């Protein structure tokens, strides 16, 4: 009997081909639509963006690309184009619109200190390069579902959060991990809007953090993570709505109190702590039944736990949906 076992470095064929296809399609369409002169300037505009984004050589650049973990692939969806994934971003510290990628370049990535505190054996401060030298990096292709009903599929590089938890050595009383984003007034223009609850905060339970799917991200598309995507360290929680996947993390606090996230603080009727993806449970203002894929523009049905039920459904089997626990919002 022939059993085909996918090896770690094997990306699904659809993923490997489609990115270049879609990129080509864009440039072709541009040429057809507005003639070669306009297309030329648009393309060079795109190039200057990528040049700006990677102009500073990231000290961790030599670490990438890393080998792919074949367990986490998305064979049924094409990869989102790198351009879309790196120019359509929610990062409220830089503004409340999606085109913050240029403003985000003001963020300084070195030195980058990460504080680990709360219920741990010993509180500590790590710098990002020290952390990177202590963990095993790999690449995983994940779906990412935003609460705003758009979705993307991208290859993240990083390491399971369980490795970070092992480094932190939490005490037995720790039930939650609270995370904080950098709050640098110099670099982040929207911090001037002082009525928002900065710094951006999010959290997971210890069980969620130990789940293998819970991934600390340091790279994207085989390169260091761009600033607008949450460099140098963010989280990817692909079974939850995107706002849970906090960016540019500077602090991990192990605690016995359930953290209240930035969005929960702002609008708890719409954005809660659990925020697991569920097509059956609408956002108060819109249906979550379907999602639009960036790059292809296709509208596809949304799946329970964003299709990751086999990995994470067990985390919630003991919890009852109630007034205090809204698993899906």
């Amino acid at each position: 009997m022939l059993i085909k076992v996918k090896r770690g470095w094997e990306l699904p064929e659809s993923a490997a081909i489609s990115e270049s296809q879609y990129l080509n399609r864009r440039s072709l369409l541009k040429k057809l639509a507005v003639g070669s002169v306009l297309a030329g300037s648009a393309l060079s505009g795109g190039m200057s963006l990528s040049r700006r984004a990677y102009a500073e050589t990231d000290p961790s650049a030599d670490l990438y690309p890393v080998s792919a973990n074949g367990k986490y692939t998305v064979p049924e969806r094409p990869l989102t184009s790198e351009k879309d994934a790196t120019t359509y971003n929610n990062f409220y510290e830089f503004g409340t619109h999606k085109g913050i990628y240029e403003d985000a370049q003001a963020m300084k990535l070195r030195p980058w200190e990460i504080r680990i505190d709360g219920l741990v054996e010993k509180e500590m401060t790590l710098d990002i390069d020290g952390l990177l030298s202590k963990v095993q990096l790999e690449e995983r292709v994940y779906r990412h579902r935003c609460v705003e009903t758009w979705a993307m599929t991208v290859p993240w590089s990083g390491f399971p959060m369980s490795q970070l938890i092992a480094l932190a050595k939490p005490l037995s009383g720790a039930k939650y991990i609270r995370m904080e984003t950098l709050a640098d007034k110099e670099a982040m223009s929207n911090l001037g809007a002082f009525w928002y609850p900065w710094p951006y905060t999010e959290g997971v339970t210890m069980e969620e953090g130990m789940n293998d799917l819970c991934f600390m991200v340091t790279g994207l598309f085989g390169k260091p993570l761009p600033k607008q995507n949450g460099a140098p360290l963010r989280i990817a929680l692909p079974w939850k709505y995107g706002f849970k996947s906090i960016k540019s993390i500077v602090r991990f606090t192990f605690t016995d109190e359930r953290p209240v996230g930035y969005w929960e603080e702002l609008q708890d009727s719409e954005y809660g702590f659990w925020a697991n993806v569920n097509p059956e449970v609408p956002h108060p203002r819109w249906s979550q039944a379907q999602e639009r894929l960036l790059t292809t523009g296709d509208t596809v049905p949304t799946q329970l736990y964003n299709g990751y039920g086999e990995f994470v459904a067990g985390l919630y089997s003991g919890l009852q949906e109630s007034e205090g626990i809204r698993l899906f919002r």
Partner: protein
Amino acid sequence: MIDYPWNDRAGRFNWLRMAAFTLAVAPALWIAVDAATGGLGAKPLTETIHRTGHWAVRFLLISLAMTPVRRITGWNRVITVRRMLGLTAFSYAVVHLALFIPDQGWKLGHVASEIVLRPYLTIGFIALLGLAALAATSTDAMIRRLGRRWQVLHRIVYGLVALGLLHFFMQSKINATEAALMTGFWLLLMGWRLAHRMGASLKSPSVMAMVAIGAALTAALTEALWYGAATGVPWRAVLEANLMLTPWPRPAVITLIVGLVTVPLPLVKPVLDRLRRSVKRSSRGSTSIRA
């Protein structure tokens, strides 16, 4: 009779109508150019829905500004472009709704159920139905047929704009700045109408300053009330933010500035008229010398 939109009723080219027409089509052209060059980003449909919605509100306010601008400046001809601007607002609103259909994957049943289920969509839809009734009664024939009732009917536009603004506030994810700014402008426009109805002259600097201050204060309170009632943002902080101009002036402050800028406008036309008369006199004078 079908004529070019930039011509007047006598079929002659008219600069004011041309300016209004250019203003009406410019946002559509802007969107089209961005669509062709990738300027609409990774979700072009969503971006176009947002932009057409914004422009629908902006054109509604611009059309509502024509009557007070005429009263303030004494420039009566602005009224001749009011209908065009109102129809422009309606057109952007229609495109705004129409694009929601492909946005929902062309599922008409889903579109209908969303409009019924989500209050902010229901409110926006009702506003659009109202605008459709106003657009349908905007032909010369309908205006003649309805007579005085036309005035009464078309006064509902004030309420329709209020619904549109509520829809604008409710769809904001958290940042309702532009909805609050548009509300500030709407309050200014309503303030001028109220002052006029109460018999005050919009050419009086003190009346204009009072309207500006009143509209700005109401805008500040509306914004703080919105954040306090509908979000977890502390309303006091939102009110306080009006006192500082950084990182950018808040909607109520911009409302105040715009309101105060209009205070000297009543002086413009008399000065221009005097200049024109003196130019005419001096040119007559020069011809007489030559003669």
